[in-house]
């Protein structure tokens, strides 16, 4: 009888200690969780292409990263990133690789915006729309796009009242010519 | 505009090709085939011809199904080499149906399941050998007794190979007298019966001399391959050396369950495998140091499986196990050799 009682007490003690320990771990994990979430958001953000094009429905890459981490939004909403970004995100988050949601847009080769200078009326609307401050100019003066900084996000197209902005493929020149894949 | 930059035609007089490499391997196999013919009768020739013929047909069929050009992979002789290696590994008495199964496994599971030539992680011939060994343990351990060769004719062999499909030998009492286990299988039986090896070695109940000749002939073929630079010295040397060192140490300090080193080296598939199986470039390690590790591993595993495992000779399994390790070996060598 005494041994049975002892056994039961020991079992309870073990369970109690284990439970207390687990609770402790759980609370400790909870304390760190917001930090962890922040660093995860940063990592996700780094995997996104940073075009800031808002095609995903969020006002930029970081907001989309926050939505992915906090609200579990689908990872296939980024057209500029395409399959590569989806794969990288899937690897990071341990999710299955899913095809790009083409409702948001199609994956296109890199492009840059140029302003047709003779048509520009200097309204500064595109300057306000540009998410990366890649357009320079002043009211009633001609604007121009800084080619290196343009991400090709197309956000400057809708505000332009005279439709003087065009998107052209990134220029192929001597400095960025890529050796083609050999025929196999 | 083509962007071919290296004009190889300008600097090399004769163009190296896969076909030439494979042809040299086939030439190197010839002395071994002759020796086996002399030792075990026409069965080995039938095996080689049948396996090659069927493998080529199957390969062409698979290539057609996979919509690949027959000109490239179909004519590069690699499948002929693989089929010949399989045919030389199996007993000459093996029924055609079983050999057919082996070739099926070789071409389909050994090679094309992984994407064809150059993509397979495991030696196709050894995959087929292992599948055969597991599936038909009885017919895979039945060899002609070299001393009774005079009574084996081509017709008899053909008849045996086509008719004795799966029948136990007791149906063919006449054959029982002239078929026997190889020395290694005999050793294994003795071990199972807990008899001491030394007695067997003293009595020479199974004569080993003819098998030494076969091994020597394969050795000559291997030396030819080394001379033609088809294979590198690292793998055969390390396989044989590691096997020899361990058996020497074990025979000296260990129990008496292991025969002496000469017996060990020249029985079973060790010499044949060291030069022809382990050196298969597709499934072997890449770098010099990697090849040394790979060869040593095969030697050690072959020793362990042969004398402590459940099979009479473990070369096929040793090769397959080391094939598994090849990517790791290559990676480790690369990391270690970086300055």
């Amino acid at each position, binding site marked *: 009888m005494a041994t049975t009682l002892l056994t039961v007490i020991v079992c309870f003690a073990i369970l109690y200690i284990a439970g207390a320990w687990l609770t402790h771990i759980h609370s400790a994990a909870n304390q760190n969780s917001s930090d962890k979430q922040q660093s995860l958001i940063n990592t996700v953000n780094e995997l996104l292409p*940073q075009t800031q094009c808002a095609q995903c429905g969020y006002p930029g890459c970081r907001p989309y990263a926050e939505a992915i981490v906090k609200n579990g939004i689908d990872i296939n909403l980024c057209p500029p990133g395409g399959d590569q970004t989806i794969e990288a995100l899937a690897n990071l988050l341990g999710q299955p690789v899913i095809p790009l949601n083409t409702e948001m847009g199609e994956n296109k080769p890199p492009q840059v915006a140029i302003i047709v200078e003779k048509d520009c009326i200097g309204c500064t609307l595109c300057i306000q729309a540009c998410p990366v401050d890649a357009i320079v100019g002043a009211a009633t003066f001609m604007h121009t796009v800084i080619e290196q900084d343009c991400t090709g996000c197309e956000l400057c197209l809708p505000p332009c009242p005279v439709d003087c902005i065009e998107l052209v493929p990134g220029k192929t020149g001597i400095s*960025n010519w890529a050796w083609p894949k050999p025929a196999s | 505009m083509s962007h071919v930059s290296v004009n190889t035609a300008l600097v090399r007089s004769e163009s190296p090709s896969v076909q030439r490499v494979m042809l040299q391997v086939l030439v190197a196999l010839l002395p071994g085939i002759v020796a086996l013919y002399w030792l075990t009768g026409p069965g080995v020739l039938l095996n080689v011809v049948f396996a090659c013929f069927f493998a080529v047909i199957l390969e062409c069929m698979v290539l057609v199904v996979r919509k690949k050009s027959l000109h490239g992979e179909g004519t590069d002789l690699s499948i002929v080499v693989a089929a010949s290696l399989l045919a030389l590994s199996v007993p000459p008495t093996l029924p055609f149906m079983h050999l057919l199964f082996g070739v099926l496994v070789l071409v389909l599971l050994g090679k094309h399941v992984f994407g064809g*030539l150059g993509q397979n992680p495991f030696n196709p011939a050894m995959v087929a050998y292992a599948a055969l060994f597991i599936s038909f343990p009885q017919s895979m351990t039945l060899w002609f007794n070299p001393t009774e060769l005079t009574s084996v004719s081509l017709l008899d062999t053909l008849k045996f190979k086509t008719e004795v499909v799966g029948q136990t030998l007791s149906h063919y009492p006449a054959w029982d007298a002239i078929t026997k286990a190889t020395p290694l299988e005999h050793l294994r039986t003795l071990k199972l019966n807990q008899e001491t090896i030394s007695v067997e070695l003293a009595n020479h109940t199974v004569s080993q001399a003819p098998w030494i000749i076969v091994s020597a002939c394969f050795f000559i073929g291997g030396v030819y391959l080394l001379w033609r630079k088809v294979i590198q010295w690292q793998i055969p040397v390390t396989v044989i050396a590691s096997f020899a060192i361990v058996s020497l140490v074990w025979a000296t300090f260990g129990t008496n369950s292991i025969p002496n080193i000469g017996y060990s080296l020249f029985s079973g598939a060790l010499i044949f495998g060291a030069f022809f199986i382990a050196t298969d470039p*597709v499934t072997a390690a890449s770098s010099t140091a990697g090849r040394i590790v790979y060869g040593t591993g095969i030697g050690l595993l072959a020793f362990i499986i042969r004398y402590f495992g459940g099979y009479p000779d473990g070369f096929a399994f040793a090769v397959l196990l080391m094939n598994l390790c090849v990517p790791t070996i290559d990676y480790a060598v690369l990391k270690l050799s970086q300055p």
Partner: protein
Amino acid sequence: MSKLLKKIERVVFNRGNNEAPFKFHGGLELAPNKLGLDKSIQTIPLPNELVIPLLNYHKQLLEPVVSIGDHVQKGQWLAHNLPCPANGTVRCLEEREVMQAQPLLTQCIVIDVIVSSKTAIPSGTSPTNNCNTISGYNDNDNSTNNLWLETLQQHGLTGLGGAAFPTAAKLQTWVNANNANTKKAVNTSQLATLIINAAECEPSIACDEALMQAHADEIVKGIELLKNRVQCERCVIAIEDSKPRAIAKIKLALEKQLTTTKTDTPIELLTIPTRYPSGAESVLIKIVTGQSIPKSKLPIDFGVVCLNVGTAYAVWQSYQGEPLTSRIISLTGPAMPNPCNVRVSFGTSIEHVLKSTGNESALKNYTIRAGGPLTGFPVRNMQLPVSSKTNCISAHTSNASATVAQPCIRCNACVDVCPEYLLPQQLHWHISAANWQQSRAQNLFDCIECGCCDVVCPSNIELSNYFRYAKAQLLELDWQEEQAKIAQIRYENRNKRLERLKAEREKEIAFRKSKLATKPAQGENNIADAIARAKARQRNKKKS
């Protein structure tokens, strides 16, 4: 482990004297196949037009300093550090195809050549000390050195080995390190070595050999000059043993040099085995010093500078006041009617070179290739201008191997010949699977594109083209990543700015509101006052 391997390598392979240098891994023994060495070097007549691409080593576009219609003299700058090869008039600035594997257009200056009898006066500043004695070069203070480097720059000196790296930039760190007595900054455990690369290892190219046979004295003087300027502890000229005549000439010149000058560190003549690609910079450094240079570092980090023998000659020419505007080119190949080595001004078209050397028939009938069989590339457009990278023009009957690539059988022939300890077949595997980061991890960027692996591949896989392709892809990925980072920073900065502006505007609004809140009170008073005043006035009126 790697240290142990290196140590073993050193013990086993280094025989400890200069006659037997370090061995390198892999490589190929190829027949040298050098043609036209029995003929003396002719300077071909200037063509009617010269085409000078406005590009520097880093493929950045240069701003021209001349305008259309200007008369230019030989040696005058067309752009910064870009001397003009001949007297003439600037005809136009336009996009032309230049000498490289890719068919892309580049901004070029086209010059109409005026052949004048007068020798041109170089306009770049040349060193004033025109001493003929060797001791004259020994004044090794800062200002002279810097002046010298500046002159090299102004004379447009680039390496003549094939990569066309600016020579002054290569020497700059070295000279500065010496001047500032900061030798400890560089790895002092290594000998500070100056290597003159005369190992012209690629088959058929013979321009360096021809140069050594013709101008051994000047080369040695150039090396002596370099040696004294950089104050190296060891100076080696490495020549392959397949060039006995060149070795003899250089040896003679060195002996002559020794009789005229005293020095603690004589120039060593190192005869190395003929084995491709011993002339590649990293391989030659390995042969001479036993030091292998990882791709992340420069030879200078290990106290080594490697210059082509042609560059040494050009350094001497520069010292004599002559800018680098021409080079020696081998016209060779099995189908070249009249193989020879000629001196060609930069900007001359291939067509002109071949026509003026009696090789016109090669133009029509055969395939033309710029560079050697391993590192060169086929040329379709015969108007391409010669540049300082062009060391060879060859003609042959068949263009590149037309054989179809077969699957890799991992025969490891490529591993055995790779001088950089790579596993080309493994890299090929990763590249085929678009596994870029893995190919980077396997040291793809160590590849020197020597083409040894292509030569030995039994499956005829264009391995080095795969590597060029993968390098381009990786560079593109890196660039994209960099761009993404820039975009992210700009985006965040913009957001901060917008927030700041918004906060300021809100502050402004709040301030105005508070102003308004106080104003109505005053306003009411005013109104009340006004009403009171009005009432008072009315009252006054009534009274009156």
